[in-house]
């Protein structure tokens, strides 16, 4: 019997290793469904899932949509553009209105950290965090871990280098929490304004020198750099960023042989990663996308399956 007892998936921080493994193992079994002719099983038939995306996203949203559909759940998409001057319905009212339609799960992406947790305090459905502000993106970290496990088998003492705008990255945070829990070694790399010293307190190493950090790396995870950060003077220019932190073939050769290249997407070719590296056979970027569906199916299966439990912690 499975011991997955979470009511929501809000953060990696709230999961223990057994929860994480349950998700990865379930995803492994569900992956086969996407290779069939009829890519569907009836497991979540009659369940309703709502994609509530307050930030634009085609990739994550359609990944969740496919995952739900492959399990025969019904899914509807709600997107709302946000701007800093929001007029109209509050988040709470939007969710309460949706709840009147009796969904089983709400998948929420929001620009405010803590928003999915806030929603979980007053809603009846299961809440899945699809990315909240700079805080967490649990399913991304899970699919990243799944991809790493496919390629490297074991996490213990694996050297994982995460490069980019760590300060603002929810992908980085979720990965840091997950990889630490499973015993991997994490090294963070980026320009100083985007990688404050306090990140050492997460138990990771930090470095401002990508070349040095790549020595002995087994996994290289590149993060997207946003132009808005340049505008806010977090780094002087894209040119400078590229010179110091772009993953080129020369830099890749400093890592361990067979190091894998990862990126949560969408990639900025020629900025944080060169085209050759993005397309090289060591890149698992497309596998990550494929695995995203299996992981999201696993999450939906584990949360929505079984008797409705009392709220777990």
């Amino acid at each position, binding site marked *: 019997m499975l011991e*997955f007892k979470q009511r929501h998936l809000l953060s990696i921080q709230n999961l223990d290793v057994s929860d994480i493994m349950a998700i990865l193992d*379930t995803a492994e*079994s569900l992956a*086969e469904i996407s290779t069939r002719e*009829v890519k569907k099983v009836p*497991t979540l038939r009659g369940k309703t899932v709502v994609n509530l995306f307050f930030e634009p996203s085609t990739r994550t949203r359609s990944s969740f949509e496919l995952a739900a559909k492959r399990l025969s759940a019904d899914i509807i998409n709600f997107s709302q553009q946000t701007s800093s001057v929001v007029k109209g319905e509050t988040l709470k009212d939007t969710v309460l209105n949706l709840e009147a339609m009796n969904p089983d799960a709400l998948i929420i992406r929001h620009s405010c950290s803590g928003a999915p947790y806030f929603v979980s305090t007053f809603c009846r459905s299961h809440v899945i965090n699809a990315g909240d502000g700079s805080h967490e993106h649990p399913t991304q970290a899970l699919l990243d871990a799944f991809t790493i496990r496919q390629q490297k088998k074991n996490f213990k003492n694996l050297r994982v280098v995460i490069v980019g705008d760590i300060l603002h990255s929810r992908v980085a945070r979720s990965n840091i929490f997950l990889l630490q829990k499973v015993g991997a070694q994490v090294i963070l790399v980026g320009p100083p304004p985007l990688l404050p010293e306090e990140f050492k307190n997460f138990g990771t190493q930090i470095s401002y020198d990508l070349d040095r950090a790549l020595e002995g790396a087994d996994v290289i995870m590149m993060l997207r750099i946003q132009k808005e950060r340049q505008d806010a003077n977090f780094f002087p220019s894209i040119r400078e960023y590229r010179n110091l932190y772009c993953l080129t073939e020369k830099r890749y050769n400093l890592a361990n042989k067979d190091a894998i290249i990862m990126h949560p997407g969408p990639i900025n070719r020629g900025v944080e990663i060169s085209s050759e590296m993005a397309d090289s056979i060591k890149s698992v970027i497309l596998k990550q996308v494929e695995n995203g569906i299996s992981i999201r199916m696993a999450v939906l299966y584990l949360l929505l*399956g079984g008797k409705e439990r009392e709220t777990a912690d």
Partner: protein
Amino acid sequence: MEEKIKARVMDAGKIKRSLDRMTTEILERNRNLKNLVIVGIRTRGIYLGKRISQLIKELEKIEVPVGVLDITLYRDDFAELETQHMVQKTEIDFPISKKDVLLVDDVLFTGRTIRAAMDSLFDLGRPQSIQLLVLIDRGHRELPIRADYTGKVLPTSRREIVQVRLIEIDETDEVLITEPAKLE
């Protein structure tokens, strides 16, 4: 839950003889062995299926492929389970469309597992026929399902538990009837 063993209804010898007999029956009914495929239902159906395939190979020198079916995703009691079942892989590396599929399971009881297995097979392809082989038929059917090949018919009460143990994972070959021990 404490269990009390009430009876040992089959030992290794009886199991072997049942499998031998059923294999003969399979060979009698299936003229075109090349079109036969075996699908074992997790968990013990897999080992029984492999043994049958091995027996066919010894007798007729033909390799009948064996696939593994996990029916967790097709259960009809999904929404009522207190705790979930771990879903494991379905591994059927061969096409099943147009094939004669021999479904293998250890115990036939209410028939719901077999119903789920058939639904799953139909999502994977369109078999020409499905035959069912079970080691034990313990009665209490809730659906119109019947086995084509039965090792032993075993009348039981609902309270009783039929346990099939196979040497591949249980250290010994035997079939037991047990009962939950009375609460003190």
